[in-house]
């Protein structure tokens, strides 16, 4: 006979399991796990192909590690401003958080500008994506990273734009957390890329 949920359902209401979890946080971690495997797979392939070639030799000696180092510094600084934005949001200072957030995105833009000059320089010297296997990997890996950075910049500017005096502080703090998590991930990927693509080939 039990043909309706009403008979079985009970009166108690709160959905208490979800209250202890943040959906966006879990979703972002799961997403980044998948992303880790994309970049991890690519870097793993790069390392293995490099080993089977006995190192990248002369091809890898021409990367512009100076610009890469400057960019590493810039990206680290942008993560610092992102963390400062989170700190400001935690004490409900939305205006200051917004300034730090904009600084983060602007540093991201600066990274891209330097990267563009670097690509142009490589290209002028004849190191195009078709020049050698090393350069195919170089453009593919850094290019994928650039796309991720670009997405992060758009989202950060979007978030900074949306925050106003009437924005609920807890909402802002949560969204900021997800965006920053992504940003730290993109920064971490760069650290690995810098070591693999810039330092290792030029050192040997």
């Amino acid at each position, binding site marked *: 006979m039990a043909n309706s949920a009403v008979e*079985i359902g*009970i*009166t*108690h209401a709160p959905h208490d399991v979800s209250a202890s979890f943040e959906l966006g946080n879990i*979703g972002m971690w799961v997403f980044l796990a*998948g992303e880790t495997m994309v970049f991890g*797979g690519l870097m793993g*392939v790069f390392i*293995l192909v490099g080993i089977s070639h006995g190192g990248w030799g002369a091809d890898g000696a021409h990367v512009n590690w100076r610009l890469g180092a400057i960019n590493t510094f810039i990206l680290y600084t942008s993560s610092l401003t992102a963390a400062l934005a989170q700190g400001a949001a935690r004490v409900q200072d939305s205006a200051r958080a917004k300034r730090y957030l904009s600084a983060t995105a602007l540093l991201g833009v600066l990274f891209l500008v330097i990267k563009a000059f670097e690509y142009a320089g490589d290209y002028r010297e004849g190191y195009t994506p078709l020049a050698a296997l090393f350069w*195919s990997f170089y453009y593919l890996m850094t290019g994928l990273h650039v796309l991720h950075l670009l997405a992060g910049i758009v989202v950060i500017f979007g978030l900074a734009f949306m925050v106003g005096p009437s924005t609920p502080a807890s909402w802002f703090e949560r969204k900021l957390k997800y965006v920053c998590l992504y940003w730290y991930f993109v920064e971490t990927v760069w650290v690995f890329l810098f070591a693999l693509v810039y330092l290792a080939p030029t050192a040997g």
Partner: protein
Amino acid sequence: MAETKPEAAPSTDAHEKMGFWRQYIFSIDHKVIGKQYLFLGLFMGYVGVFLSYVFRWQLAWPGTAVPFWGKVTAPQYYEVVTMHGTIMVFFVAMPVLLGAFGNFLIPLMVGARDMAFPRLNMASFWTIFVGSVLLLISFFVPGGGSKAGWTNYVPLSDAAKYLPGNYWGGNLWLMALAIDFASVLMGGINFLTTAIAMRAPGMTFWRMPLLVWQELAASVLFMLSVGPLIAGVVMLLFDRMVGTGFFLPEKGADPLLWQHLFWFFGHPEVYVVAMPGLGIVQEILPVFSRKPIFGYRMIVWSVIVAGILSFTVWAHHMFVSGMSPVLAEPFSVTTIAISIPFAVMLFAMIATLWRGQITFSTPMLFALGALANFLLGGVTGIPLGTNASDIYLHDTYFVIAHFHNTLVPTAVIGGFGGIYYWFPKMFGRMMNETLGKLHFAFTWVGFNMVFIPLFLIGLGGGQRRIYMSSVYTYYKPLQPLHVIATIGLLVIIAGQIPFLLNFFLSMFRGAKAGANPWHATTLEWATDSPPPHENFHTIPTVVRGPYEYSVPGMDQDWAPQAAAVEAGAAQG
């Protein structure tokens, strides 16, 4: 037009107020999205069956005109074979088992009002829809669809000179695959977040139905294995469209790299498809045996162990590829080891039947059929996983028969069982039992008529991917077996007529199903059929495990997971 907050009480009429487009097309309701996946998967499935009909006819009667197609040319043969595999694995098995059943059932089974990210869920469906359309378009571009095989090995699939006339077909194939992967990744984010964070009160992890466990395992496996192949797909697209040489031996690259990337994903992918299929079977068996599932926790641990091991077996697909024979040995060992957790699951399922009160309803018939054939598929994997015997069997029809005996029982036969079992919940009406049993008989008998002969062809040395078998003398004695197999396929196709009639007629004319027509225990049966907008009138409190059948001392032979009003009060 005040937006309803997620925690607010469900408003049944909120659903009615939405326009047609928001309600049925660009819906963010997981139940509607699940059904959209089901329809897409069924459509693509019948496209895939038609393609298999074309090449099986060519295999049985080489060179004769195929009805509704005409004479099959060699490029066409490789096109239909490639597209059959691609469609069935990536555009049928995944959308139906993950997209349809995962979407429809995970929130209902864990007691949630919807998925964690409903908009992402909608985006996931429309992404795979675009991927499916791209793949179908590739039939009509100059040169037709991809002919490089569903594994798309390089260098054949790489530079245009190796496979002329495949330029756009191959490019679209790669794009459709990348889009498909993106869609399933979005789905996986939803599945995991929903099951971790949106369980009803009392729904502990160890009270989740096995199907939920297996959908989660499949999502994790997919997410952790597909990354390198996504990178590989992009690399191959650059090779084809820009002119890089990531996989080209003449540019100093190692073509085996693609095989490693493909199978590092490809083997876990088998379990991405098989696990939800087994999960469906494990939901059906206890209901129609009126017994708790045997060894619930052992099954969950088997799923986890199999999932971990699945990352260590991929090179068993590559024993004849020229990779180091020293490496082949450990990969043989891990491959044999992975059969242990699956054997545990099979024994648990068989033990569930033991001394049960079995009802041979249509869902149960499909579940039993799936069980029998998955056993055959698993056992025949052992000679393929052992590198010595694989060298003989590699690339023969034995391989084809083996993997169809693992994937068809789980994805297709199990999937059909799931459709019959949850149809009342999806559409509020029962399917016809007579037509259902007819469908089962044709499908299951036909399936074995196709693939038992293929085992024999493979043991006889019959190579796969041969367009005109009649030109080889060694193939002549094997030819009658190909004829039997093709007749088997025609039997399967005939069996789909009762299914389609049943499916579409029952949707409108079937007997009304109550909330719980099978007297089952899991949460989806504790709400209306079809469930209201936001699933539950009140979020239920879960008081027990998912398979409490024939509990001694109860006046009915099932104890629902959801607390009854009185029971909840007694719990205090």
